[in-house]
């Protein structure tokens, strides 16, 4: 297992003042470093996280979760961390499950470990639209990438920092960073990155609401997949 000092947990947050303290505390209590990307919150989310001891990166405009995630990666790569964990700041992901990701990374050749709400026991609690469409989106991504994952849209993931460093040029040239997950899997598959998954258990949001409109989000994912497939750089990319 990677030493705890070499693990950083990154959170992307927009107006999550009510839940951020519990999430940051649960991460810091376990000894992990925590980087929060405050996506131009107006409720003091960033200040709360900073007071608790998290490192805070601030966007001056609200850019959306995808851009915030890219900021997370780059901020984490500025320091000599070995593992980068990505989590939601709304309290839906359980920090006590981080060790599952670390164990899988330690015992496999995986570059990325994705949490799966389907393999976890409480997927049936999810929103009905999400529950219906998630298998189709995941199936499409599996078909295009050759991966065999059950939940491509889960925001609880772990990355090997060395693998992310190798694909930095790809991260810097994402066509649709606001729908990063689908484009990331397509491009990473071309570069030969190995993806595995672990079951996770979702919790209820501590507070707040999701800013992802399902219809807009679905359309965005479809557009991202199409644009990526039409990008010549995607087809030119080869395994190192």
């Amino acid at each position, binding site marked *: 297992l990677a030493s705890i000092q070499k693990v950083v947990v990154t959170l992307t947050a927009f107006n999550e003042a009510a839940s951020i303290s519990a999430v940051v505390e649960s991460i810091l209590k376990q000894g992990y470093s925590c980087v929060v990307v405050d996506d131009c919150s107006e409720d003091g989310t960033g200040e709360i996280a900073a007071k608790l001891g998290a*490192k805070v990166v601030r966007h001056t405009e609200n*850019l959306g979760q995808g851009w915030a995630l890219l900021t997370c990666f780059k901020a984490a790569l500025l320091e000599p961390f070995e593992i980068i964990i990505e989590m939601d700041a709304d309290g839906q992901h359980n920090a006590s499950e981080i060790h599952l990701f670390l164990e899988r990374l330690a015992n496999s050749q995986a570059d990325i470990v994705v949490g799966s709400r389907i393999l976890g026991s409480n997927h049936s609690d999810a929103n009905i639209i999400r529950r219906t469409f998630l298998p189709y989106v995941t199936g499409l991504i599996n078909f295009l990438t050759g991966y065999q994952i059950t939940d491509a849209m889960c925001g609880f993931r772990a990355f090997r920092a060395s693998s992310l460093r190798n694909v930095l040029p790809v991260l810097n040239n994402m066509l649709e960073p606001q729908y990063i997950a689908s484009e990331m899997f397509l491009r990473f598959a071309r570069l030969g990155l190995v993806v595995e998954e672990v079951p996770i258990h979702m919790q209820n949001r501590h507070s707040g609401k999701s800013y992802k409109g399902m219809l807009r989000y679905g359309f965005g994912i479809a557009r991202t997949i199409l644009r990526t497939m039409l990008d010549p750089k995607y087809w030119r990319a080869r395994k190192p």
Partner: protein
Amino acid sequence: MKITLVTLTIACISLLEVVRTLIKFKMDRIGIRAGILWVCLWLGILFFSLFPAKLDFVFNLSSMANRLYFLFLLAIYILFILVFELHSKVETLSHRVSKLNHELAIARYSTECIYSTNEEKATTKTENKNQLEEYSDVSYSNSSTPDQ
């Protein structure tokens, strides 16, 4: 070809607009695609104002009974092209602004990190930072870092 005051005015305006578009293009204020589009449009107006009879040929080609309908359709088509151009431009600019904001956030964070840690850690960060800069459009360097 019967030249009236109206046709002469339209022809002069069209010619002026062609010249203005070419100057704008030369001064790099418009792109090649927009330049070609506007020059073609104004040259078309210039041509049909001088030779209005030639419009009959175009109307016959369109097989439309009413000439007015044809002109409306043509105008809508041109407007569609312009809206598409504007939409593409706004989307590109929006992407660039987002990227700039994102890079700015990283640059500021990088500077804060360098200030807040000791020299040894800062050196490690500078090495990683250099690697990020290699692939990025902006520099994360700050001229007043403590180790300089």
